[in-house]
C-alpha cells in the first residue's frame, strides 16, 4: 500500500510514544489533547507529507488533488505524455490511472511539439531519462513480445498493465489467456485495453473464459488489424457477432481454431471465409450449431487458400464431405474425427470428387462411415496422399487395407490405431502391396493382430520401409517379428513397445536382417527382451545407433557394457526399471566412445551413491538426467549432482 500511510514505530510524533492507536483516524488530529507533549526535539522529519497530517474534514477543501478531474480531462493529460516510460509510471499510480492510460490508442498519443517546448521551463528530476525516451520513440512496434496469463492471474488489471508495458518496448505479438472459473476473470475491459495498446497483436488465444463475450472480441477486431491467428476454446459467451466483426476488422486472418463454443454457428464461419482471403487453417471442434451450410460456404469461399482443415465432433453430414471432396483444391492436411452423421457414401463421394489433388495428410478417427469401399475411393481419388492415420475404425478389413495400400501409390506413412478387424494378414499384405515410397508403418492397440502361425512364402523385400512402430498389440509375437525382419531389411527406426509376446528368439533375426544400421530403437515395456538382444544390437548396429529405449526390459550390466564398448553415436539412453547396478554405470562412464546427452535410470533401485563419480563424468556432456524413483540414491548425493551438473536438467 501507499508508503504515505506507513507509519513505523520509530517515527514518533512525540517522545512519549504514539497515542493514536490508528493514526488514520482523522478526528484525532483536530485537537491535540492536553496529555500530549507537543514539543519534540529536532530529528529527522516525519515521512508524512504535510497535507495528510491535517486530513480532518474541515481542511479537505485546501487539499489539491488531481482526483477532482473527470476521466476525460485526465485522459487529455495522460495522452500528452511523451514516452512509454512515463505512461508506464502512470499505470502504476492507481487503478483509475491504469484504466485511463490503457485506453489511449496509439493514434491518440499527442506529439504536439509546440507545447512540449514548455518543458524547458520545468526541471526534469531524471535528467538522463530523456535519453531512454528518444531511443524508444524510434522503435517500430513490431509485435515481438508474447505474454501468457493463466488461472488466477488472468485479470483485467494484468491485461491493462501488459497493454501499457509492452507498447513502447517492442509491442505485443502473442497473447495467451488461460482462464479459470474465478469471479474476477478477464472481461471486455481487459481486451479493450489490449486492442488500444497492442495494434501489432498477431496471435490471440483464449481458453476457458466464460466471462469474455462479444464485446471483448469486437474491441479486438477494432484495434488489432494485424491479427493472424485466433484460438477460441471453451468460451461459451462468444457468438457469431464476434466472428462477423473479426471478419471485417482482421482481414489478415490465417488460422482459426474454435473449440467448445456452443454459440458459434454457420453465419460466423461464412463471414470469416468470405472476408479473409488468406485463411489457411481452420479447426473446429464441438460446436453443435455448425452445420453443412457453414462448412460448404467455408470451402467454396476459401477454396484456393484453405490448406489445413480439421473437423471434430460436429453435426455435419455427407454433404460436407462431398463439398470438401469437390472444393478442397488447396487442402493438404485434412482431419475428420468423431463425426457421427457421416456414412460410407460421404467418403466415397469425397474420394470421387477429384478435388483433393493436393491432399498429403489425412486423418480419420471414430467416424462410422469408414469402410473398405470408402477408403479405396479415397486412395484412388487422392493421388498425392502421403500420410494416412486411421483410428477407432471397426469396419476396415484386411482386404480393404490391402486395396487401399494398392490404390494409394504415393503413400509414405500409415498409422492404424484401434482397428480391431485388421489382422496380421492385412498388415503383411499392406507391406507387400504398398507403393515404392512407403516409409513408415505404425500399429497401435490393434487387438486383431495375432502371431503368424503359417510361414510366409518367399517374397520380394519391402526396400522402402524405414520406420516400424508396433505398440500394445498383445497378439504380436516372435514369428511375425522374424518375418518382418526378412521382409524389411532397410529398417532404421524400430519401436516395439508394450509387447509381451516378443522375446529374444524373434528379435535377434530382425537385428541380423537389418542391413541398414538401426538408428532409433524403442523397446519399452517388453519384459521378455534381455541382454542378448542388447549385446547383439550393440555389436551389429553400434555404429549407427543414436537412441535406445529399454524401459522395463530385462537388462543388466552386461548390456550396458556392450553399449559402452560399441555405440559411439548413442546420445539418448533409457534404462529405466532395468536391473542395472553401479558397475554398469561405471562402465558407461569409462567408455571413451560414448557422449550421452540424455540418460534415464529412473526406477533402478540398485543404482546407489557409489555411481556418483560415474554420473559426474557422464554429466559433462549430459543435458538431461532422470533419477526419479532411484531409492538407493540419497538426497545429499542428488544435491551434489545438481550443483555440479549445472548445465544438465536433472529430474529427481
Amino acid at each position, binding site marked *: 500500500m501507499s508508503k504515505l500511510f506507513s507509519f513505523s514505530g520509530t517515527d514518533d510524533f512525540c517522545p512519549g510514544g504514539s497515542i493514536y492507536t490508528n493514526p488514520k483516524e482523522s478526528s484525532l488530529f483536530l485537537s491535540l489533547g492536553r496529555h500530549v507533549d507537543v514539543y519534540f526535539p529536532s530529528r529527522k522529519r516525519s515521512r508524512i507529507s504535510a497535507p495528510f497530517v491535517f486530513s480532518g474534514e474541515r481542511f479537505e477543501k485546501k487539499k*489539491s488533488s488531481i482526483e477532482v478531474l473527470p476521466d476525460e480531462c485526465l485522459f487529455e493529460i495522460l495522452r500528452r505524455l511523451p514516452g512509454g516510460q512515463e505512461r508506464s509510471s502512470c499505470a502504476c499510480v492507481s*487503478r483509475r490511472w491504469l484504466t485511463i492510460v490503457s485506453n489511449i490508442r496509439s493514434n491518440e498519443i499527442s506529439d504536439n511539439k509546440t507545447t512540449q517546448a514548455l518543458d524547458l521551463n520545468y526541471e526534469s*528530476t531524471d535528467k538522463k531519462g530523456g535519453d531512454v525516451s528518444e531511443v524508444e520513440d524510434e522503435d517500430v512496434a513490431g509485435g515481438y513480445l508474447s505474454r501468457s496469463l493463466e488461472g488466477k492471474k488472468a485479470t483485467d488489471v494484468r491485461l491493462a*498493465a501488459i497493454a501499457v508495458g509492452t507498447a513502447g518496448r517492442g509491442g505485443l505479438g502473442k497473447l495467451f489467456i488461460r482462464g479459470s472459473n474465478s469471479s474476477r476473470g478477464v472481461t471486455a475491459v481487459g481486451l479493450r485495453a489490449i486492442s488500444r495498446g497492442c495494434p501489432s497483436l498477431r496471435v490471440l488465444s483464449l481458453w476457458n473464459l466464460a466471462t469474455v463475450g462479444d464485446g471483448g472480441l469486437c474491441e479486438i477486431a477494432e484495434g488489432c488489424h494485424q491479427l493472424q491467428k485466433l484460438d477460441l476454446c471453451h468460451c461459451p459467451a462468444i457468438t457469431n457477432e464476434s466472428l462477423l466483426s473479426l471478419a471485417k476488422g482482421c482481414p489478415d486472418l490465417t488460422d482459426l481454431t474454435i473449440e467448445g463454443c456452443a454459440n458459434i454457428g454457420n453465419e460466423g464461419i461464412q463471414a470469416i471465409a468470405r472476408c479473409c482471403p488468406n485463411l489457411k487453417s481452420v479447426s473446429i471442434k464441438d460446436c453443435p450449431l455448425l452445420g453443412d451450410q457453414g462448412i460448404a460456404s467455408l470451402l467454396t469461399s476459401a477454396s484456393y487458400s484453405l490448406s489445413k482443415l480439421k473437423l471434430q465432433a460436429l453435426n455435419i453430414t455427407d454433404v460436407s464431405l462431398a463439398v470438401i471432396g469437390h472444393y478442397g483444391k488447396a487442402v493438404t492436411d485434412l482431419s475428420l474425427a468423431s463425426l457421427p452423421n457421416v456414412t460410407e457414401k460421404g467418403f466415397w463421394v469425397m474420394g470421387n470428387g477429384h478435388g483433393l489433388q493436393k491432399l498429403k495428410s489425412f486423418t480419420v478417427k471414430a467416424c462410422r462411415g469408414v469402410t473398405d469401399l470408402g477408403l479405396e475411393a479415397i486412395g484412388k481419388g487422392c493421388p498425392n496422399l502421403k500420410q494416412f492415420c486411421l483410428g477407432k475404425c471397426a469396419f476396415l478389413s484386411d482386404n480393404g487395407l490391402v486395396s487401399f495400400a494398392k490404390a494409394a501409390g504415393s503413400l509414405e506413412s500409415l498409422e492404424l490405431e484401434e482397428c480391431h478387424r485388421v489382422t496380421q494378414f492385412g498388415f503383411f499384405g499392406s507391406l507387400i502391396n504398398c507403393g515404392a515410397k512407403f516409409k513408415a508403418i505404425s500399429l497401435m492397440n490393434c487387438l486383431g493382430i495375432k502371431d503368424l502361425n503359417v510361414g510366409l512364402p518367399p517374397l520380394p523385400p519391402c526396400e522402402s520401409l524405414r520406420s516400424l512402430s508396433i505398440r500394445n498389440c498383445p497378439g504380436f509375437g516372435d514369428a511375425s517379428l522374424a518375418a518382418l525382419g526378412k521382409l524389411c531389411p532397410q529398417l532404421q527406426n524400430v519401436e516395439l513397445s508394450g509387447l509381451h509376446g516378443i522375446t529374444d528368439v524373434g528379435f535377434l533375426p530382425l537385428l541380423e536382417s537389418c542391413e541398414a544400421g538401426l538408428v532409433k530403437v524403442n523397446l519399452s515395456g517388453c519384459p521378455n527382451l534381455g541382454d542378448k538382444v542388447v549385446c547383439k544390437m550393440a555389436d551389429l548396429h553400434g555404429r549407427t545407433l543414436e537412441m535406445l529405449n529399454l524401459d522395463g526390459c530385462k537388462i543388466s550390466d552386461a548390456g550396458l557394457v556392450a553399449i559402452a564398448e560399441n555405440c559411439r553415436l548413442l546420445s539418448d539412453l533409457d534404462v529405466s526399471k532395468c536391473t542395472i547396478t553401479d558397475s554398469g554405470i561405471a562402465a558407461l562412464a569409462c567408455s571413451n566412445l560414448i557422449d550421452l546427452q540424455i540418460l534415464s535410470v529412473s526406477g533402478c533401485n540398485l543404482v546407489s551413491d557409489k555411481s556418483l563419480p560415474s554420473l559426474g563424468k557422464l554429466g559433462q556432456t549430459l543435458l538431461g538426467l532422470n533419477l526419479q524413483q532411484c531409492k538407493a540414491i540419497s538426497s545429499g548425493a542428488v544435491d551434489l549432482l545438481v550443483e555440479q551438473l549445472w548445465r544438465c536438467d536433472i529430474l529427481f
Partner: protein
Amino acid sequence: MGSTSTKIKLRTSDQKVFEVEKAVAVQSQTIKYIYENGCPDSVIHVHSVSGDILSKILDYCKKHVNSAAGKEDISPEELYEWDANFVKVDQNTLFDLILAANCLKIESLLDLTCQTVANMIKGKRPEEIRTTFNIKNDYTIEAEEAVRRENKWAFDMLGGVGTMVIEELADDTMSKCVTNTKSRVCVIAANQIVMMRSISKLANKKSIDVYKQPQNPTTPRIKESVKQRNVGTGFIELFFHFKCKM
C-alpha cells in the same frame, strides 16, 4: 451596434458578470454554440466556472485573439513565454482551468494546461506522482506487484539509465523483458544486490549459463541463464531463468 465590437455577457457560478468582446468569447466553442443558437442579447450562464477562473480564461483568450489578429505586437516566442507564465499557478487553479477549458471547449487552453500537467508527471516515479498530486493508491498488493512487473522500465533504483531490475528473486524465477542495449540488469535477492550485468556484454552471445559462486555463505546462490534476441533497432528481448538457492 458596430459589428467590430459586439459584446457578450457571461455570468459565472458565483453570480459575477463579465462583458467581453464576441471575438474573445467565441474562442470557447461552447459559448459560440450557445450564442449562435440562442438569443444574442441575453446573458450566457457559465455556471460551472467561477469568477476568478473565468477572468483568467478571458485574459488568455484576449491575448491569443489579439496576437492572432495582429492588434498586439508580440512574437511567437513571446507568446510562448506568456503562456508559460500563465500556467505558473498552484495545482488547484490549474485543475480548475482544465475543468473550465474542457467544459467551455477551448482547444488551445486545454492543450496548454494538460501539457503542463503532463510535464509535471514526466520523469517521476509512481510514488512521486502520488505525492505530487495527492492520489490514493487503491491497488491491492498483488495487483500493484503485477502492474509494476509488467512496466519495469527503470524505476531508477541504482541511478543508472535503463536499469532493468529483477527484484526479490524467488526460488525459480523466469523473467522476460525488452530493454534497450544501453541498459543494465540488476538482480536483487533477499535485499542484496547479487548480480549486475551490462546488456551490451550479453549482446554477442546467444545464451549464457553462469553459475555464480557466493563470496560469503549468506549470499544467495544464483544460477542464471539468459537468452537474448534482437527485436528491432537497439532493443533486446531478454529471457531470464533464475534458480536461486539460499
